[in-house]
């Protein structure tokens, strides 16, 4: 093993260098025999990071357990547990640590057998980069596609595919290019950032630390060059401020401090903040720190663990979130809600069924929660979404969750710390699922909707294509069938007032609704039209065309139009589609707004039989 000290480097110079070195956390994944352990062993070996006593133990182990005919088997360096070594499999995520002159690394070594989904999701939740092993002989397998999918689901910003065992395909460039194309195409479908693909032989050490003479056609970086070269993602001080309160510290009546980690952004003494979920506002009084560590701070940024005091006596305890008001990112606030939509990686052997209750931990808050609905299960091989009643072990699905107390959430892709959650089985205490919040519903569910959500899943056809999938997704997200509601009648018949009332009511139920007001159209789109019956009909036609576009996006559109000619209303009905069109005559309507609301709600229910309207 070589020294970390450079030739002639003083300790002081080393410490400065080491302290300023960045830390990269990455994971390795692959199927059972793809050579993952060998790759890690090779990384340690070729960077000369193996202690002499470990090397000696390795040489002895290789004779007994090795697969290299008594020669040194680098895989044994990392295959940790005795039980595993005997069975030749890796049971669980193993963590490795090593440094080079440039960087420190933490490796999450994720095994690729039956529990791969759970292990890979676990590893990925701590990492920013994934190295997926592909056996050059076998090419992309189900497993490879799944690894990339999980990496994209967990939001890993960097992907690397290492095409291993190139020596066994004679370092054939065309074979490598074929696999490279396959992998890039799959990642493009997933929408992940473009990955790097590297040809390697872990067994012989090609392109791991040292470039290979076997692949003169490959001019890209080696694995180590990549690891040392990719930018390390650190939380930005410019992001919105989020402090997740872990613990209240009260040594005396004079001091009440809130301890926790700043997961995002930064804060300074005097900044205006609010405590969620209560929404109470105050200012940061102190960023307290002991004298030995240098005393109080004026400013502090993520990802520090800190202790703050607040200017006013506001209620704040474990599970609360302190956010900024105004300033950087002040306009982006988490939702406070009891209903969320999330992607789950199911990790329990007992399948998930709708109606099951758990403890849910999100941030530092733990609340009782119920999965009220399974929207679909993803077929990881085709990315198809299947409406199913259960999510099985190692499957991934989209669900609706209702919590017993309000929680503070943000979409996972915007704010990991408030979008990541786990579900805990209340009987076994097992971690049943990892979840990523898609959206938080800012409205309390009404009794009616809660009833609806626990009813059987609607009979929606599986999507035939990505486009159809999105329309389905939108409709499912808003729990509505896209529809156009035409309120027509003479001027002053109350159309517009009712249109806005319906819109507001639908919003409050969590639907996505929008009003198109005929009068407002005349200020722009229909500026050329007069108030003749013909032009009023033309105005309706234009409104209907706009409505059709919005319907395709899954919206409920409320049209408020004079529309005096029955023929024009029929035209609009044809344009939009009979099943999606409901006309209400405000001249005739008795004035019973409640009845009208009920009709509209019935019409947009996802489980309404088409044609019943």
């Amino acid at each position, binding site marked *: 093993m070589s020294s970390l000290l450079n030739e002639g480097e003083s300790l002081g110079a080393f410490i400065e260098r080491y302290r300023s070195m960045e830390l990269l956390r990455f994971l390795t994944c692959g199927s059972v025999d793809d050579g993952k352990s060998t790759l890690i062993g090779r990384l340690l070996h070729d960077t000369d990071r193996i202690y002499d006593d470990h090397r000696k133990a390795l040489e002895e182990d290789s004779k007994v357990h090795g697969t290299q005919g008594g020669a040194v088997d680098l895989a044994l360096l990392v295959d940790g*547990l005795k039980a595993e070594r005997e069975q030749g499999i890796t049971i669980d995520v*193993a*963590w490795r640590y090593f440094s080079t002159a440039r960087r420190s690394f933490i490796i999450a070594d994720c095994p690729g057998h039956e529990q791969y989904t759970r292990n890979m999701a676990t590893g990925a939740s701590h990492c920013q980069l994934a190295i997926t092993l592909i056996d050059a002989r076998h090419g992309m397998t189900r497993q490879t596609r799944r690894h990339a999918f999980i990496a994209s689901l967990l939001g890993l910003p960097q992907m690397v595919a290492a095409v291993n065992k190139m020596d066994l395909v004679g370092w054939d460039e065309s074979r490598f290019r074929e696999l490279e194309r396959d992998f890039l195409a799959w990642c493009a479908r997933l929408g992940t950032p473009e990955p790097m693909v590297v040809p390697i032989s872990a067994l012989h050490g090609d392109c791991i630390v040292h470039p290979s003479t076997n692949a003169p056609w490959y001019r890209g970086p080696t694995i180590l060059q990549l690891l040392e070269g990719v930018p390390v993602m650190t939380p930005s001080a410019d992001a919105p401020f989020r402090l997740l309160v872990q613990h209240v*510290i009260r040594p005396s009546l004079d001091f009440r*401090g809130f301890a926790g980690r700043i997961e995002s952004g930064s804060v*300074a003494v005097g900044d205006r903040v609010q405590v969620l979920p209560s929404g109470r506002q105050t200012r940061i009084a102190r960023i307290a720190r002991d004298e030995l560590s240098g005393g109080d701070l004026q400013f502090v940024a993520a990802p520090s663990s800190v*202790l703050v005091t607040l200017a006013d006596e506001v209620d704040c305890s474990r599970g609360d979130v302190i956010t900024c008001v105004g300033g950087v990112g002040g306009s982006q606030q988490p939702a406070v809600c009891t209903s969320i939509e999330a992607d789950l990686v199911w990790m329990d052997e007992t399948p998930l069924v709708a109606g099951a209750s758990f403890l849910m931990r999100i941030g530092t808050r733990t609340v009782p929660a119920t999965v009220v609905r399974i929207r679909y299960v993803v077929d990881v091989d085709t990315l198809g979404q299947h409406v199913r009643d259960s999510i099985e072990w190692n499957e991934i699905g989209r669900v609706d969750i209702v919590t017993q107390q309000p929680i503070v959430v943000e979409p996972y892709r915007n704010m990991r710390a408030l979008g990541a959650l786990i579900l805990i089985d209340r009987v076994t205490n*097992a*971690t049943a699922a*990892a979840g990523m919040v898609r959206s938080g519903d800012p409205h309390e569910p009404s009794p009616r909707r809660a009833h609806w959500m626990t009813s059987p899943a609607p009979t929606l056809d599986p999507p035939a294509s990505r486009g159809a999938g999105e329309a389905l997704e939108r409709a499912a997200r808003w729990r509505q069938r896209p529809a156009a509601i035409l309120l027509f009648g003479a001027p002053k018949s109350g159309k517009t007032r009712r249109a806005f009332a319906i819109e507001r009511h639908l919003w409050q139920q969590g639907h996505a609704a929008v009003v198109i007001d005929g009068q407002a159209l005349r200020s722009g789109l229909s500026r050329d039209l007069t108030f003749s019956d013909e032009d009023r009909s033309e105005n309706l036609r234009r409104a209907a065309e706009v409505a059709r576009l919005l319907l395709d996006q899954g919206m409920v559109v409320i049209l408020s139009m004079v529309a005096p000619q029955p023929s024009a209303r029929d035209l609009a009905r044809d344009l939009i589609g009979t099943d999606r069109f409901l006309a209400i005559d405000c001249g005739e309507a008795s004035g019973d707004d409640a009845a009208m609301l009920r009709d509209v709600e019935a019409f947009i229910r996802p489980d309404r039989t088409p044609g019943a309207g």
Partner: protein
Amino acid sequence: MQERRWTHLDELEAEALHIIRDAAACFERPVLMYSIGKDSTVLLHLALKAFWPAKPPFPLLHIDTTWKFREMISFRDETARRHGLDLRVHTNPEGLRQGISPITHGSRVHTDVMKTQALRQALEAGRHDAAIGGARRDEERSRAKERIFSFRDRNHRWDPRRQRPELWNIPNTRVHGGESMRVFPLSNWTELDVWLYILQHRLPVVPLYLAKARPVVERDGLLIMRDDDRLDLRAGERVQERLVRFRTLGCYPLSGAVESSADTLEKVVEEMLRARTSERQGRLIDHDQSGSMEEKKREGYF
């Protein structure tokens, strides 16, 4: 505005503080396992920092096998006194009565009775549902799979197949009565990180880590310090004064010294940077048999 740039030691510190605070908040009767060594020194410093200006909301527990170096014991008592901490010391009374010793009974029996069983007794007596310890994953191969929040059943056993997946920084801290959790805030630290942190914060350490002329005997290829006269000399053995220090500290008859002239923290770090062998090489306890640390963990060894 930012006072200095974020370094990877800062990151490890912030992560450890987060873990310690969660452990304190999520368990009813946590305890900090204080074993006096360098890792415990960092752990205790972080625990003090995590709850400042209050005291840590848990006691310190030391499992005393009665075979620790005398300097360790005086350092322990001085540390607890200086910080005004609630230090609880436990020795297995059974083992004491049977006169279990690493010299006559061997490291395996000694470790089982005086450490593993003693720890169980102390955790049960204190009804502790969480024990915070200073173990690191890079110490030993079987530790590489250890969780930060590591679940133990009612018999304090660690089952690698029943460990919970740990996602993001959201630990699942739920346990039923009698079950417990071992919590390892320094999981992601390396030996080098620990020493650099000690150096950076000028933390006091047991003087045994620094080189000094000490009475040692050569035994089974290790340099064993004769800390008291309980270490009987075998035929042909003789006590020599040699300039030595220790990379890890445990029971003195089981801890091998290394010859060294590193008598300051700086020199220790420099020596470690040039080391070609791992810190555990000087520990008899790990060399009983292949996979021995794994076996001990399954039985409830820390």
